[in-house]
């Protein structure tokens, strides 16, 4: 059997549709001589269409997936949040919050807060994948989309507030999640957060084999 592109196949197996007929069609066509580019294009389309099909067929499950993701994310932030970030920054760089109010050195906290945030995103993604089987791929994409929408909206608000106030509004109570994750690097966060969610979510997926 002609071996299709490994990365495209891995992503397709993890995030692709529950109904495997389309995967079979892609393999059959690739075997018949289609190009690698063709396979990539078709695989990504199949992933998106699989998510659309699942959303249309099971809207309640999508809501459950998004609820699991956001609940675990908020719980992780509430339980870990500043406390862990503070402790970690102290441990790694001898950083102290009270001293920071005087010295205005916040970068150790910012780095640790981002680490805690990304741990929260990773954990929530893994939980979404574990609890939405057998349609975990499309459900993970739905949760990722919800996070991107919220982050993008919050980032826009932060930009507006920054423009109005002349400085980054940290910490901002309305956008706690974003204020921990994004103020210092929201542009990269809009790329890194969905990437972390998808990669860590894929770790919680069932293993599907190319040849079953």
């Amino acid at each position, binding site marked *: *059997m002609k071996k299709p592109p490994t990365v495209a196949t891995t992503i397709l197996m993890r995030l692709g549709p529950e109904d495997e007929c389309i*995967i*079979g069609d892609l393999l059959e066509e690739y075997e018949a001589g289609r190009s690698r580019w063709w396979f990539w294009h078709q695989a990504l389309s199949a992933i998106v269409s699989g998510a659309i099909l699942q959303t249309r067929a099971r809207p309640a499950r999508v809501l459950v997936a998004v609820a699991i993701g956001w609940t675990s994310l908020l719980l992780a932030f509430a339980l870990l949040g500043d406390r862990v970030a503070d402790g970690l920054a102290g441990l790694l760089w001898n950083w102290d919050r009270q001293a920071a109010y005087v010295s205005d050195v916040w970068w150790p906290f910012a780095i640790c807060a981002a680490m805690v945030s990304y741990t929260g995103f990773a954990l929530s993604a893994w939980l979404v994948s574990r609890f939405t089987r057998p349609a975990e791929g499309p459900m993970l994409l739905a949760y990722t989309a919800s996070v991107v929408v919220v982050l993008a909206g919050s980032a826009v608000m932060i930009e507006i507030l920054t423009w109005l106030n002349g400085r980054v509004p940290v910490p901002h109570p309305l956008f706690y999640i974003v204020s921990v994750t994004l103020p210092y690097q929201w542009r990269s966060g809009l790329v890194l957060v969905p990437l972390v969610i998808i990669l860590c979510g894929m770790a919680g997926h069932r293993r599907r084999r190319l040849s079953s």
Partner: protein
Amino acid sequence: MDRRFLTDFELMIMLALLRVRERAYGVPIAREIEETAGRPVTLAAVYLALDRLQENRLVSSELGDPTPERGGRAKKFFRATPAGLRAVRNTQRAFVALWQGIPELRAGVV
């Protein structure tokens, strides 16, 4: 009378499916549209449309046997239902009726 109409892409899918006849699954349906109609399609778009058609009971499907060149995965064969055939005819009638009386679209004009 069934007044269900199809979108242009659904109509293409139905016609391709009817042309392929017995062994109509994703690959030959997509090929038929690309080769006969000249419209490039992704398999995902074909399956999305087929899913919608099946939801509306315009096509039915059954699984075939798994084959090695498909990584051991089965084919899903589609067939038009009587309601699907009616929908194709309704849509054709609607298109033909709309076509008439447009001098710019008469053969040889454009």
